[in-house]
């Protein structure tokens, strides 16, 4: 190759690097701006609710004689450590009419024995509508010997979380089904709040998502979170910030736009008849909660139904977040793989005007800014230094780049913290505030990059179609006064 050719090739390479780096910069600006807009929408929503709190009539839902009763479905797999307390907490929720359906999904530990001892369970003959096909054979049904306790424990062969949930839906006797994790702790009024949209707009609301917050570090007494504190580990502290920005405020914003795609499997309320009509959760999907919501959207849009899927920021389900890098990595790989498979399965909806805002707005956003984000984020770690080395971009551009990706990101997270402080005020200690501010800055310094790496692994697993594995979420438990503490205890 002659010197002239090499120079031309080098110059062409520089041009490409400039173009790619400018595109990456624009991408980060777009991502952070979109988050900022969602947070602003969520803030408006919070201000609206806050100003009207005194006459909102939340209590009237409790007094409503026609309020729709709810079946709480708790799929459980080897939850021996906390199942008794979790069920006790569920049974103590404030709501006019509900039952708790625990589905023992082939547990190999003492989950069932704990429940049997706690509630003196007796086996009952039971007729079940086969509304949704279930893979794991139903073995037996148990109820407390004290017939007044609204608890049903279903034992079945292992079939995975989605299969267990489907079994629970079959056993659910009430028109609304609330899907919760077996290790979650709900606020006492969480059911009242999450059911409110169904009362307000019963003909159109088909599903409601509640807020997921991280319980690590919080004090739990008798199945209630009594003191909210920041966790002791930075890995979890950063997740608290991430949940606040993306899951609480982000989803509130999406809900305002009518484009909510994800209702967490840890706390979602659905119309039972519609869940049955669409065949329940997909047991082959690794992101079964989001897939259920997307399938609901799809069916409603195809039937041209006037419907709403909403998110409410008030009611909280407290859940334990991964506190080690290994467990977090597994969770994030699974999430990203779930998203990739979801996009592939429903690819016909993406950009399709038939599906309204979901097809034209929410799904393309998920594709660009959630699914591809790990690729772009890690790509930028390679391409920006490459651009600098090849003199394609200068230091000034690099500063710009860092400001757009990191600096702007911190600003967005600080905005989320401000909204949290004004609207929710869950963390009361000054030290928690300082920790949150520091965690906001640390998130962009390694955590997001690690997430991106795990995300790419998840996408690769989806492309390779390796066997789907949920993996075991190692529980450390919640802090209880006088108990082993830290982030754990249970």
């Amino acid at each position, binding site marked *: 190759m002659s010197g002239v050719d090499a120079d031309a090739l080098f110059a062409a390479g520089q041009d490409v690097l400039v173009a790619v780096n400018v595109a990456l910069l624009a991408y980060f600006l777009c991502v952070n701006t979109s988050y900022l807009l969602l947070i602003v929408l969520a803030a408006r929503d919070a201000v609206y609710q806050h*100003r*009207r709190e*005194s*006459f*909102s*009539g939340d209590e*009237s*839902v409790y*007094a*409503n*004689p*026609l*309020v729709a009763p709810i079946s709480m479905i708790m799929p459980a797999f080897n939850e021996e450590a906390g199942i008794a307390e979790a069920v006790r907490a569920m049974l103590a929720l404030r709501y006019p009419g509900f039952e708790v359906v625990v589905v023992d999904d082939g547990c190999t530990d003492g989950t069932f024995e704990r429940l049997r001892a706690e509630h003196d369970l*007796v*086996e*009952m*003959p*039971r*007729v*079940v*509508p*086969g*509304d949704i096909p279930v893979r794991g054979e*139903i*073995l*037996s*049904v148990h*109820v407390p*010997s004290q*017939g007044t306790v609204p608890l049903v424990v279903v034992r079945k062969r292992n079939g995975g979380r989605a299969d267990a949930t489907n079994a629970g839906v079959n056993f659910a006797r009430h028109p609304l089904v609330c899907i919760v994790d077996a290790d979650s702790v709900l606020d006492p009024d969480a059911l009242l709040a999450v059911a409110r949209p169904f*009362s*307000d*707009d*019963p*003909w159109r609301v088909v599903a409601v998502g509640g807020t997921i917050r991280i319980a690590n570090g919080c004090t739990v007494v008798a199945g209630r979170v009594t003191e909210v504190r920041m966790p002791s580990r930075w890995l979890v502290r950063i997740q608290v910030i991430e949940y606040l920005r993306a899951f609480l405020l982000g989803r509130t914003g999406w809900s305002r736009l009518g484009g909510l795609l994800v209702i967490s499997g840890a706390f979602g309320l659905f119309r039972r008849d519609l869940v049955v009509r669409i065949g329940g959760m997909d047991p082959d999907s690794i992101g079964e909660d989001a897939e259920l919501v997307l399938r609901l959207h799809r069916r409603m849009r195809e039937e041209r139904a006037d419907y709403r899927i909403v998110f409410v920021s008030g009611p909280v389900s407290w859940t334990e977040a991964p506190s080690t890098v290994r467990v977090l990595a597994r969770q994030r790989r699974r999430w990203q793989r779930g998203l990739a498979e979801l996009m592939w399965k429903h690819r016909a909806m993406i950009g399709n005007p038939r599906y309204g805002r979901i097809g034209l707005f929410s799904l393309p956003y998920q594709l660009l800014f959630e699914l591809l984000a790990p690729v772009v984020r890690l790509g930028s770690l390679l391409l920006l230094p490459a651009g600098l080395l090849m003199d394609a971009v*200068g230091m*000034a*551009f690099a*500063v*710009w780049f860092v*400001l757009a990706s990191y*600096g*702007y990101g*911190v*600003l967005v997270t*600080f*905005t989320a*913290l*401000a909204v949290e*402080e*004004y609207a929710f*005020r869950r963390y009361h200690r*000054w030290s928690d*505030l300082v920790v949150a*501010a520091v965690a906001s800055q640390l998130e962009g310094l390694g955590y997001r990059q690690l997430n991106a790496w795990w995300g790419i692994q998840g996408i690769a697993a989806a492309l390779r179609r390796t066997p789907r594995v949920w993996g075991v979420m190692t529980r450390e438990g919640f802090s209880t006064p006088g108990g082993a503490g830290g982030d754990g205890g249970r």
Partner: protein
Amino acid sequence: MIFGNLSQVVLGVLLNGLGLLGLVIVTGRVRHRWRAERDARLAAQARPWLLALIGGDDDVAEPLDRLSALGRREWRAIMPSALTLLAQVRGQGHDALALLFDRRGLAGDALRGLSARGAVARADAAYVLGLLGRIEAVPRLRRLLGDRDPQVRAVAARALGQIGDPVAAPDLIGCLSGARQVPAHIVVQALILLGPPARPALVAALARGEAPVRAVVVDVLGFTGGYAGSAEAVPALARAVASDPAEEVRARAARALGKMGTRECLDPLLDATDPAYPEAVRAEAARALGELGAVEAVPVLRDLLGAPGYRVPHSAAEALRELGPPAWEALRVAAADAEGPAGGGPVAAHAREALAVVELRRGVRPPVGAVARVRPPSGH
């Protein structure tokens, strides 16, 4: 060069933005805590007088005077407690609190507030007037049912229910449809509070409203019909069960007949178990027969155990479970009749499940039983 200068500006904006947000967070927290502590202190000083006011003592003059004389800041601190008590207490305590609100000029303020420009002020005013039960506010609250703000409409509807003037019934029913609606559960509660005098408006709405309106109306009739109102309500509900165009309304009407619980409800409910009726209506009718407590329904319910699908036979079994010994005997026969090598069919399974619940209620552990699975009817 451009990038260099601009990045300095952007960096400055970002840093200032972060600083500003930090300041907003910190000052917000400090201000909130300071206010909360001040209000708690002020409220603690006034609370004994508030409790004395509603305590049922004949002499409320002193607490009334003390509370009436509170400064603006002190009153603002105690007002949320006063409003909560106003919503909770009845009788003398409520009257004393209403007098206090009058003395402080709050009832008049609220009446004026109904025409305020801000939606929050209008809703606040409607809320207070509802708690005070001010009947003179009814005409303006009725107008507020058409307010452009949905929450103002909802608070006005609730207030009209609390005041309890039946003249508002047609307006409340009217705001179940159209562009400016009020959530059905709020209207239901308001109409239930209006009670039997609202019944003629409800019966009239059943004949001409839209499906969601009719659904609410049958629900309310179920709660307010009672013995005194059965002459009006039962024929209307029976017509709805038999011939309403919406299946949901028919099912709810069957449920409402069960709730009313009078003898006149029996025949329409028995009719609604006929196979010509939709499955949802039959299932609700079967359940309602159990709620009605009519032993005459046992033969019909026993036959329904053999109906196809899950809902109708399951509801029938549940109803038989509630009807006492004669019905339990029918369940035992059904459970025994179908017993076979495979444990019997769905009829036996439904009967066994119901009998097991009966046993459990009597403190007897039921025999260990199998789980039977009933497939949904074809076309489901």
